[in-house]
């Protein structure tokens, strides 16, 4: 690997029947990311289960004993592989009906989503659901993988018809940028190698696409957002007066000498130094973790946000959001919950439930509660003002989680509208 290798996080959405595990297995296997001891373990299991000699690559992504016993995937698993060009993190999400929440979870950090379709079945309800979630969570890149082309005689007509139907549906969600790839994960056509069976397809195989898709623009580079995580006061002789504000630049760029506004107070000051362990920087940008010192002494604590005065976020105690309910306990509109948004933790109430979205039909329904896997538009009120952007504009300052104070469980994921 060279010292310019980039990191790409992607998810795969589809059911076991679409050959999702086989696709991941194929990517790992053909990119030589499977080790001999892993291969020997799954070879043994394939034989024990009465496999017909071929190694079942889908076994590679089985994790827990409970899953192996039941032959299902119960949670998000993360897989790692690398090529000389890029390092990849796969968020492997189960495709079962009830697991919307797992897909939302894995999609929240992904640069790219592979939506898997069985060429024999075409665009199904679950394809629509996966695409809706992908658009809701704002995954920047979409690949439609039309798998099992071997089962439809590698027919170009079948592939073209599926792509046309899918593009028409995706356009309704405002998704226009995507790549459709025909493939056979089972035989390895168009996954890592081109194979011999899809010569009519002019585009790149999947791995080549994953290696080359441009992700530099996925981060918002215009709006400087710096939530303060931790105030550093060494109080040693050497650093007697040192007061640094530690955090990660979530978006935008900052340079020593730049004027900043501290929110929610609105105080204005200047960045004195950008301090790092490896020495001071003149300029830093997302996603660097740094320490900022300021020219003025101002009372600042965790939860405050530094921004540039020219590109201000919103500061408010009220906002609307798309919410995915993650908990088995339904939403109780009478209760107070806790929101964690950037580095700020505040109490909240749900002022209104605007509507619930049927993830299969995309129809909107009125509702008085939310159950696990429900997606809804809600109006929220918080005890202290939050400093935020819309999720579309900024994935980091537009997202939050909801925590149930009684159980401390994470019960919902929110995206500010």
């Amino acid at each position, binding site marked *: 690997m060279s010292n310019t*290798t980039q990191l790409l996080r992607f998810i795969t959405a589809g059911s076991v029947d679409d050959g999702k595990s086989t696709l991941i297995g194929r990517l790992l296997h053909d990119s030589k990311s499977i080790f001999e001891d892993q291969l020997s373990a799954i070879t043994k299991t394939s034989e024990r289960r009465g496999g017909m000699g071929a190694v079942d690559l889908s076994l590679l992504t089985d994790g827990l004993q409970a899953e192996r016993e039941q032959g299902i995937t119960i949670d998000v698993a993360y897989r790692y592989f690398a090529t000389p060009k890029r390092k990849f993190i796969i968020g492997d999400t189960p495709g079962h009906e009830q697991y919307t929440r797992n897909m939302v979870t894995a999609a929240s950090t992904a640069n790219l989503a592979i939506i898997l379709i069985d060429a024999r079945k075409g665009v199904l309800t679950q394809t629509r659901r996966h695409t809706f979630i992908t658009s809701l969570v704002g995954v920047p890149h979409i690949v439609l993988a039309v798998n099992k082309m071997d089962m439809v005689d590698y027919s170009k007509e079948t592939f073209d018809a599926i792509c046309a139907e899918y593009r028409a549906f995706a356009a309704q969600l405002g998704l226009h940028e995507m790549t459709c790839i025909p493939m056979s994960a089972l035989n390895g056509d168009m996954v890592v190698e081109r194979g011999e069976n899809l010569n009519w397809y002019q585009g790149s195989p999947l791995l080549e696409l994953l290696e080359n898709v441009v992700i530099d623009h996925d981060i918002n580079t215009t709006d400087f957002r710096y939530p303060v995580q931790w105030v550093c006061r*060494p109080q040693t002789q050497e650093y007697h007066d040192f007061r640094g504000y530690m955090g990660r630049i979530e978006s935008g760029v900052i340079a020593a000498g730049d004027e900043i506004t501290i929110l929610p107070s609105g105080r204005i000051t200047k960045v004195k130094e950008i301090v790092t362990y490896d020495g001071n920087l003149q300029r830093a940008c997302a996603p660097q973790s740094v320490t900022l010192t300021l020219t003025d002494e101002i009372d600042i604590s965790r939860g405050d946000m530094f921004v540039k005065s020219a590109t201000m976020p919103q500061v408010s105690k009220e906002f609307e959001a798309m919410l995915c309910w993650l908990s088995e306990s339904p939403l109780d509109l009478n209760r107070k919950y806790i929101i964690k948004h950037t580095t700020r933790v505040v109490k909240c109430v749900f002022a209104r439930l605007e509507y619930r979205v049927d993830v299969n039909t995309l129809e909107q329904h009125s509702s008085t509660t939310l159950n696990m896997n429900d997606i809804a538009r809600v109006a929220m009120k918080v005890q202290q003002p939050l400093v935020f952007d819309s999720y579309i504009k900024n994935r980091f300052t537009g997202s939050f989680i909801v925590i149930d104070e009684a159980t401390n469980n994470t019960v919902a994921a929110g995206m500010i509208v």
Partner: protein
Amino acid sequence: MSNQPFTHLDVLESESIHIMREVAAECKNPALLFSGGKDSIVMLRLAEKAFRPARFPFPLVHIDTEHNFPEVIVCRDKLASDLGERLIVRSLDDSIKKGTIVLKSADQGRNPFQSVTLLETIAEFGFDACIGGARRDEEKARAKERIFSFRDEFGQWDPKNQRPELWDTYNTRVHADENIRVFPISNWTEMDIWEYIAREKLYIPDIYYAHEREVIRRDNGILPVSHLVQPRSGEQVEKLMVRFRTVGDMTCTCPVESHARNAQEIIEETAITRITERGATRMDDQTSEASMELRKKEGYF
């Protein structure tokens, strides 16, 4: 640096620093588990990057099996002292004396019992968060674990009932007597670790590099001869050039044959190796396909 695209190591490093600072800010009484192994040495450098010029907002804690390679203990003590950070060591021998660990035989592998001493140490100091150097690429059960992994009052991990973890917004909340384990290098692979060791020029125990060592062949592996591992009848002591990919309990940590004498040569070897880190080096994880899952459910980190 800010004019170039960030490399995967830059992105991983920043993610890890962000995680450590979240622990410091939101947890009342955290600790950093530090063994003197390569992953935890990487963690120390990340903690320096996260908190300098201040001191770490947590002590270093080592749960010592007393089956460690002496070179690792030397390295552990040197690093803690060079950094000027507080190191707390608790030994499995203490739990054995107390009777909370009962061994079947004196030279038995001690990894499964680390959980007991770890939980006792958590109770002794009232830690509500333990930061550990586990990686998701190490093992199947780890691949499914959250970065902030909630444990109940018995220190147990319930894989079916994990908190969803979205974006980089971590839920750190626990009730009294519960705690969380935090894994800032979850997304790092063995290769990333070696590239980082090379990039940062980190000092690690020299048994990670190729050296000549007396070994015996047992149960499809090579085991280092030591006061804990002596040849049984019929076993031949051989001298081989080896290095360790992991440094754990001496009774069950196998070296691999190698001539790689520095981090760069190890990177080259790692790039072409065909066996996983644990598969090559940990006999105790090969007992069953679910070994790690079972140990984690019992409170192992």
